[in-house]
Structures are given as structure tokens and as C-alpha cells.
């Protein structure tokens, strides 16, 4: 009976630790949350309503730093862009798709200093174009996020070359 009490106490302690972690997320979790939002707003379901599309485009703007450097050679897309420009390009790209899913895997967050985080991860984009063509692309990327009053914002997005022709 005493042993059961110890076990119950240990379980309660673990639950309490888990609750504290959930209630007070660390910086790493805040950084990862931005990726979760990015995936949510880029993804598109079949028959997406225009209002939803406008909301997602507007929301996407809030993820980027005032000047964001993008280097995506597989898509011939590189340069320095404003959040409005990037959200505009993303919404234009989404128009070609009937449905689209963006997923991130293996996010490794490293803090260069208190205000900059470097994240290495795998991005997988799957979906179907309006012509019925299936799309399945996977890339490794590195992002730099800067801490601002609005939270962690994407300041640099770059594709890592895994297979070099």
C-alpha cells in the first residue's frame, strides 16, 4: 500500500512537471511554434474558401522579419523580400494547388545568441495541382529567426543541397 502511494506520488510529480513545461514554454518551443504556424498557413484543403485564403495570406505576413533573405535554388527563387512580398508569392503559389500539405520534420534549434535562432529541418510538401498532377517534394532547409517584440520571425530561409549533381 505504501509502495502504491510512492508510485502515485511519482506519477503526480511527473504530471506537475509536464504541466509547468506546457504552461511556461521555453524559447525553443516558441521557435518551433512559428514552424507549426507556417505549416498551417501554407497548407491548403480542397475547396478552400476565399476568406480563409485571405486570412492565411495575411497571417503569413506576421511570420517574417521586415527584410527576409530567401535562397531556394530548386525553385529559382532567391533574394531579399518584405513580408508582404513573401506572403504574396506564397498565395500565388497556393493558387496552383487544389490541396497542399507542408510538414516539417527533425527541427534542430540552436541559439546563436539571445536574439537569433538557427533551425535545421526537413520540409515535405505534398499535394495535387489543379491539373491533377501529384507533387511530392522534400528538402533540407536552414532558417534564421530573429527575436522581436512580435515573437520569433523568419529572417533567412535557405535550402541545403543534399544531393549535388
Amino acid at each position: 500500500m505504501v509502495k502504491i502511494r510512492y508510485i502515485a506520488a511519482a506519477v503526480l510529480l511527473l504530471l506537475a512537471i509536464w504541466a509547468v513545461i506546457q504552461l511556461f514554454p521555453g524559447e525553443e518551443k516558441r521557435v518551433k511554434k512559428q514552424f507549426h504556424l507556417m505549416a498551417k498557413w501554407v497548407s491548403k484543403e480542397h475547396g478552400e474558401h476565399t476568406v480563409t485564403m485571405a486570412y492565411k495570406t495575411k497571417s503569413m505576413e506576421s511570420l517574417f522579419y521586415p527584410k527576409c533573405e530567401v535562397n531556394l535554388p530548386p525553385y529559382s527563387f532567391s533574394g531579399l523580400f518584405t513580408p508582404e512580398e513573401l506572403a504574396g508569392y506564397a498565395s500565388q503559389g497556393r493558387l496552383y494547388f487544389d490541396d497542399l500539405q507542408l510538414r516539417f520534420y527533425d527541427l534542430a534549434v540552436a541559439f546563436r545568441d539571445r536574439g537569433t535562432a538557427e533551425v535545421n529541418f526537413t520540409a515535405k510538401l505534398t499535394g495535387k495541382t489543379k491539373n491533377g498532377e501529384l507533387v511530392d517534394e522534400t528538402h533540407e532547409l536552414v532558417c534564421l529567426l530573429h527575436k522581436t517584440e512580435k515573437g520569433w520571425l523568419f529572417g533567412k530561409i535557405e535550402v541545403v543541397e543534399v544531393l549535388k549533381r
Partner: protein
Amino acid sequence: MVLALVEEPSLAIRDFFFPRVTPRFLIRASAVGLSAYLFFGHVFTPFLIKGQSMEPTHRDRSFNFCWRLKYLLTEPARHDVVTVRFAGSSVMLLKRIVALEGEKIEFRNGRLLVDDQEIEEPYVRNPCNWNLPPRIVERGCVYLVGDNRTMPIENHFLGQASLKRIIGAPLW
């Protein structure tokens, strides 16, 4: 009088599915959990093949295990099928090594040439007309190509990757 302590079958079944939570049970369950995590997470990682670039050797939607200790004591060799990681091992590439570091590789009318010698590729079933200008595989890298050459070379994901990215090989 001898009392035979035989558990009722229904009681044994109940104990199997709903065991009593004792310290001994918790230790046993933790050991099983930890062993499974180490075995399936770091030795034989299960994975599902998505895509046709390794057909017919490895079919789309087929299941396999990544044998992660394969290159612990040996180096990857030509014709080995290997798993290549991206940022981590959640998503991997499955490709075949066709050239090693320092070798010159090219495709000429669908034929693979390494150091100007034609390489036999019994695993390639369908002829192709791929052309790739010669290039040298960099130090610490291997050249990887899929077995399915039915698509245009522009649509095939091939190239050289660092040996550090190779995390194992499919079990079968």
C-alpha cells in the same frame, strides 16, 4: 492434504491484460520499453518507401527496416543501396551508390561510365537514354542514383552526397 494452487484461466487472462501495478512490473515494463526504443530507434529503424525511384528493387509503398549498424565497421561500396538522411532520420532517401570518391562518373546514352569504364547494372530493368556530362566525385562523398531510370534525368533526384549523411542500409 495437498493444495494445488492453480489460477483460474479467466484470472490469468485478466492479469495478462490488466496486470497489477507493482514495482517489479514497472521495472519490467520500463526495460521492455527502453529495449524497444533502442532497437527500433537506433538499430533497425522501420520505414515505409514512398516513391518509385528505386523500382523494381524496392517497390513504392513497401515496408522495410534500416539496418543502422551496417557501416559501423565497413565503408559503403559501389552497388550498395543506402539510406541517406536529410536534417534527421524521419525522412530519408533510398538510393544506390554508383561511384566512390575521386571517381569520374558520367551517363552516356543510358550507360553508366565510371572512370571511362562501362559499369554493369543488373538491377536496372528498363533501358534509358540518360546523358550526364562527366564529373568527379568529391572527397568524402559517393554518387547516388535510383534504379528506376524510366523518367527523364531532369526529374530524377541524383547526385553526390557526403558519407556522413549515410545512416544505414535497407535490411532486405
